[in-house]
């Protein structure tokens, strides 16, 4: 993260935080003064410090989701000044440092909002809709075993690299929060492409994309309007090229399902 200043002097900001006691309860913004902050502390550390103050006063601390604090788990999820994970490109909230702000700034902190991500409390949302999509097809059914011998299944380097780009998705939901339509297309396309690019993923390629898209729609996510706000907000800078790939996969699978021959024998094996 590029710092907006290289100053080492402490800074004070005003936080305008979304407070909501529980699901389906009315929420509101509450202002908190965060004083004398070390510019090198992360945004989440700053929230910890603010929470210390709040707790000392006997009030309910701000609930926020966090886990690894190194940008690989996808748990932290704050919309900061209207952008998921705050200013800066290719970082999660935990990788945002206070040096990205100026002394005296007003910082608006909200949860990742979407109808499919109901607020649990304050800044924490329920993102289990993503799990439902993964359960619909984000896996390879057969055991692929331990690491195979090199070259026993040839994978072109180009495909492996592209699959790795997609696999970098940490499932945080910033794409949904950034999208004007709360669409989950970037997340789903990353998961579909990650497996669809590998030889092991081919047998279930059609079934996977049809099932995952169908579940995505059923979960109430919006539709892509090709504005690419998702990839701009993605902490892993996953490209919206994967959305194009998923669109193609989905259309191919839909048309193929009409013409693909089916065996007459039912039964005997999983139907």
């Amino acid at each position, binding site marked *: 993260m590029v710092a907006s200043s290289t100053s080492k002097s402490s800074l004070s900001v005003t936080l305008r935080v979304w407070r909501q006691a529980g699901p389906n309860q009315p929420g509101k913004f509450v202002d908190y003064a965060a004083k004398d902050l070390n510019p090198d502390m992360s945004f989440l550390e700053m929230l910890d410090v603010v929470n210390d103050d709040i707790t000392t006063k006997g009030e309910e601390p701000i609930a926020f989701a966090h886990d690894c604090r190194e940008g690989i788990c996808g748990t932290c999820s704050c919309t900061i000044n209207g952008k998921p994970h705050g200013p800066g490109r290719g970082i999660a909230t935990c990788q945002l440092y206070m040096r990205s702000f100026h002394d005296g700034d007003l910082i*608006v902190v909200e949860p990742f909002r979407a109808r499919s991500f109901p607020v649990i409390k304050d800044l924490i949302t329920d993102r289990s809709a993503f799990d439902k999509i993964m359960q619909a097809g984000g896996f390879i059914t057969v055991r692929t075993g331990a690491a195979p011998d090199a070259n026993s299944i040839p994978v072109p380097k180009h495909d492996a690299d592209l699959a790795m780009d997609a696999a970098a998705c940490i499932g945080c939901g910033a794409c949904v929060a950034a999208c004007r339509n709360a669409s989950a297309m970037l997340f789903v396309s990353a998961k579909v492409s990650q497996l669809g690019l590998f030889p092991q993923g081919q047998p279930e390629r059609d079934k996977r994309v049809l099932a995952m898209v169908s579940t995505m729609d059923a979960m109430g996510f919006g539709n892509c309007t090709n*504005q690419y706000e998702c990839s701009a907000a993605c902490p892993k800078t996953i490209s919206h090229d994967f959305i194009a790939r998923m*669109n193609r996969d989905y*259309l191919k699978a839909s048309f193929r*399902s009409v013409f693909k021959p089916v065996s007459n024998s039912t039964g005997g094996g999983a139907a």
Partner: protein
Amino acid sequence: MSLAGNLFHSSIGRKFLMALTGLILVGFVVGHLVGNLQIFQDPDHINGYAAFLHQMGPLLWVARIVLLISVGIHIWAATALALENKQARTGNGPATAKHWIQATLSSRFVRWTGYVVLAFVIYHLAQFTLGVAGSAQFKENLPRYVMAADYRVAGFPVIKAGAEVLDVHSMVILGFQNPIVSVFYIIAVGLLSFHLLHGIDSFFQTMGWRSAKWSGALRKLTLVFCLAYFLGNLAIPGSVLTGMKGLREGFRAPSTSRTARR
């Protein structure tokens, strides 16, 4: 789900329908413009062309029905998708104003440009096809035009010299001599070009043919296409409005001749 179910009910399916109908409509507007640019040639051309199209009878109706269905599906899919998008956000949108990161201007206003284009298409049909708006200048109410030479399509003379045909040439020029009509046309085709700037780019994305490797070139090609389309359309009302393109020689307005007869 069946193929029809996938296409009409799923998110990507309906986007595919939007892309497909959009492609048909882009094809039409380009053909329509190229045909109409014949107005800059001798009146024989545009009048012969119009008579030729009308001569096609059932084929013309097939084309009209395909276009009408395309417009219907395009609007239906856009509406259905937009309502779902609203639903996905309702009650849980960002409390702060939407912070745009990289969405293009044409994508943000695509719905609004769509509304203007729809209003324009309705007016355009009323004026030049049905003769509801500005009916005194409608082709059916103008004196017939006598073809000076054969109108040829692919070398075949489809409209013979001496044939009496509708005077589309004069209708268009009389229509565009009204500055309000002309300015509305120019604004509407400008917004249509702006609509296509997002639409054509989106077509490639929805079909899955767009990637970072050539998206920059695609964007530039789309921009050039939209600009050329706009300039082509600007030429017709623009040249009439500035007086560069006037009525044909020997044209007599019917209203004056009618009063003379009375």
